[in-house]
C-alpha cells in the first residue's frame, strides 16, 4: 500500500470523526446511553447479589447438588419406564430428540451456505449433509490435543478446553482456536484434522461413510488416511472432498487456498466448469462465484505449522484427565459405540442403587420456577449455567440438555414450568421411595367395587 493510499484512508478517518462530531451537534445532542448503561449495570449487580443468596441457601444447594448427580439417570429411567400409549404430558423420551433438533438448527446457523448446487454434489458428499444427521447423537470426534486457547461452541454456549481433558465433539459443534491456539481433532473414522490459530471449523454432520466439516475462517489440515468413508469440507467457495488424501485449506474473506499434499482430492465449484481434481503437491485457489481454479505445484514442506502440531503427542487416554469432580458438559469419555441400553420397560431402577426421592426434584423445580427472577442474574429471561456455580452449574447444564425445548441454550420460565409438570408427573408415578406405584389409577371406591 503506497503513502498516497494511506493518506487518503487517514483523511477518510478524520472525516468520519468530523462527521461524528457534527452529528452529535458538538456534544449537545442528548444521549441516554450512559444512563441506560448505568441502570442496567445497577440492576445486574442487584440481581447478582440476590441470586447469590438464593443459590447459596443450604436447602437449595443440597438439593441441587444431589439432583445434579442423578437427574440424568431419572430422565433415562422415566423415558424407558413410562408406556408410550398412556396419556401424559411429553415425557423425556419424547424430548430425547430435542437436543438433536437443536443440533440441527445449530448446524444450519453454523454451516455456511453450500457452495455447490444440490444436484452437483456426488453421493459421497451428499451423504454427509447436515439434514442427514438428525438421528446422529453419538460423539464421533474428539479434540485430542491443543495448545493455547481453544473453545468449543455448543448450543450457543462456549466452553474453553482444559489441559489433559479429552473433549468429545458432536455434530453441530464449532471448534474455535484463538491467536496462538492450535487443535487436533481425531475423527471417529481414525482420520485427523488439525486447526491452526484463529481458525473456526464446524462439525456439520456425519454418517457411516462420510463426514462433513465446514471451515469459516483460518487454516485447517486434514489427514484422511483411513480407507473408511470420505470427508468433505465446505469452504463457502467450493466443497472439497476426498476418500483418501491429505490436504490443507486456508480460508480468506474472498477465497480459499487448497493445498493437496497427497492422495486424490476433488473440489466442487458452483459450476461444472469450475470443478477440479488434484493430486499430491498441488495448490489451487477456490474463488467466490468461480469455484476451483487450476492447480499449481508447491512444496508441502511449506506447511510448517501443521508439521509442528503433528509432532506433538496427543492425549490418547480417554477419560477426565487429572481433574476431580464432575466433568463439564461435553467432556465425557470418548464413546464410539451405541449408548448402553436403559432399564427394561416398567422396571424399577437397578438393584443396589436406591433411587432418590422424586419429590426432591419437584422441590428443586418448584424453587426454580418460584425464584426464577432472582436466579436469572443477568435478566435475559433464561437461566444459563453461567448464572450459577459449582454443583448448581452442572445441574443447569444437565437440565438444559433435557428440557431446553427451543434450543436457545437456556431455560426460560415457560420451560421451567413445563419441567416442573414433568417432574410432578414422574413423582406421582414413582412415589417417595422411587418405587413405581402399582395398581390402577381409578378412585378407591371403584377399586372396592371390583
Amino acid at each position: 500500500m503506497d503513502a498516497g493510499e494511506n493518506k487518503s484512508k487517514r483523511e477518510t478517518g478524520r472525516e468520519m470523526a468530523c462527521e461524528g462530531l457534527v452529528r452529535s451537534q458538538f456534544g449537545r445532542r442528548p444521549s441516554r446511553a450512559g444512563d441506560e448503561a448505568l441502570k442496567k449495570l445497577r440492576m445486574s449487580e442487584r440481581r447478582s447479589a440476590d441470586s447469590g443468596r438464593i443459590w447459596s441457601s443450604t436447602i437449595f444447594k443440597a438439593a441441587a447438588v444431589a439432583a445434579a448427580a442423578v437427574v440424568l439417570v431419572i430422565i433415562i429411567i422415566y423415558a424407558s419406564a413410562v408406556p408410550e400409549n398412556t396419556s401424559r404430558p411429553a415425557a423425556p423420551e419424547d424430548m430425547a430428540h430435542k437436543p438433536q433438533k437443536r443440533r440441527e438448527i445449530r448446524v444450519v446457523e453454523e454451516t455456511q451456505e453450500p457452495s455447490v448446487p444440490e444436484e452437483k454434489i456426488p453421493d459421497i458428499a451428499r451423504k454427509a449433509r447436515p439434514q442427514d444427521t438428525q438421528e446422529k447423537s453419538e460423539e464421533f470426534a474428539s479434540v485430542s490435543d491443543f495448545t493455547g486457547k481453544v473453545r468449543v461452541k455448543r448450543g450457543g454456549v462456549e466452553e474453553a478446553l482444559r489441559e489433559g481433558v479429552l473433549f468429545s465433539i458432536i455434530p453441530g459443534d464449532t471448534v474455535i482456536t484463538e491467536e496462538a491456539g492450535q487443535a487436533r481433532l481425531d475423527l471417529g473414522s481414525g482420520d485427523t484434522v488439525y486447526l491452526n490459530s484463529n481458525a473456526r471449523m464446524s462439525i456439520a454432520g456425519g454418517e457411516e461413510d462420510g463426514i462433513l466439516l465446514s471451515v469459516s475462517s483460518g487454516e485447517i489440515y486434514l489427514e484422511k488416511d483411513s480407507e473408511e468413508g470420505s470427508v468433505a469440507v465446505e469452504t463457502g467457495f467450493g466443497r472439497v472432498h476426498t476418500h483418501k488424501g491429505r490436504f490443507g485449506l486456508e480460508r480468506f474473506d474472498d477465497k480459499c487456498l487448497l493445498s493437496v499434499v497427497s492422495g486424490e482430492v476433488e473440489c466442487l465449484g458452483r459450476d461444472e466448469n469450475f470443478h477440479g481434481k488434484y493430486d499430491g503437491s498441488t495448490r489451487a485457489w477456490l474463488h467466490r462465484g468461480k469455484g476451483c481454479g487450476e492447480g499449481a505445484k508447491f512444496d508441502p514442506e511449506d506447511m510448517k505449522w501443521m508439521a509442528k502440531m503433528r509432532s506433538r503427542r496427543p492425549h490418547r487416554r480417554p477419560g477426565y484427565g487429572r481433574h476431580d469432580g464432575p466433568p463439564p458438559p461435553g467432556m465425557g469419555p470418548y464413546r464410539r459405540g451405541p449408548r448402553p441400553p436403559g432399564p427394561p420397560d416398567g422396571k424399577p431402577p437397578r438393584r443396589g442403587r436406591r433411587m432418590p426421592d422424586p419429590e426432591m426434584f419437584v422441590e428443586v423445580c418448584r424453587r426454580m420456577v418460584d425464584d426464577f427472577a432472582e436466579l436469572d442474574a443477568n435478566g435475559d429471561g433464561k437461566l444459563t449455567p453461567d448464572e450459577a456455580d459449582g454443583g448448581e452449574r452442572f445441574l443447569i447444564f444437565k437440565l438444559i440438555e433435557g428440557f431446553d425445548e427451543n434450543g436457545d441454550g437456556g431455560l426460560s420460565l415457560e420451560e421451567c414450568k413445563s419441567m416442573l409438570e414433568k417432574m410432578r408427573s414422574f413423582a406421582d408415578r414413582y412415589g417417595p421411595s422411587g418405587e413405581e406405584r402399582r395398581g390402577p389409577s381409578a378412585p378407591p371406591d371403584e377399586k372396592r367395587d371390583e
Partner: protein
Amino acid sequence: MESLDIYEVLVKEHERMLQAYVLGIVGDTSMAEDVAQEAFIQAYRKLSTLRNKEAFASWLRSIARNIAFSELKKRGREIPTAPEVINGMEDVFAVLDDDKLGDGWEERAAILEKCFKALPDKLRTVCKLHYFEDQLVKNIASALSISLAAVLKRLERARSSIRDCVEQNLGLEGA
C-alpha cells in the same frame, strides 16, 4: 462510595465523546446509542484489565469500535476496518481528549463548531438537515429542489472543508 458510583463519573465525563465517536462510525443515532450503551457496560466489566488509567478514553473507544463493527457486520454494512482509517479518527479524538482545550468535552468540541459555522450557507444548510435533523438525502433534495447528486456532492464538500479546518485548528499534521 460504591464502584458504580465512581464509574458514573467516568460515564458522564465520556458519554458525549463516545456518542460522537460512534456516530462517526455508524452514522445512525439510535444504533450509536445502543453501541455506546453496550460499550459502557462492557468497559465496566473489563475495567480491571485496564492498566493505564490515563488511557481510559481511547480504551473505551476501542471497545465501542469493536461493538460498532460487529453491529455493522450483523446488518451487512461496510465496515471501515483499515488501520489507517481508525488512526485518522483517533487523531481527532486524541487531541480532543487533551484537557488544555477546555474543561468539559463539549467545551473542547465547541472549538470545532466554528469550522461548521464557517461553511458556506449552501453546504451548512445541507449539513444541518442531514446531520442535525437526520433528514434523508432524497428528502433534502426534494426540499431544496436540487438533484440527489448535488446534495451528496455538497455533503462531501462540507465534510472535506470541516476536516481541513479541524486539522488546522487542532494542529494535526498531514497524514
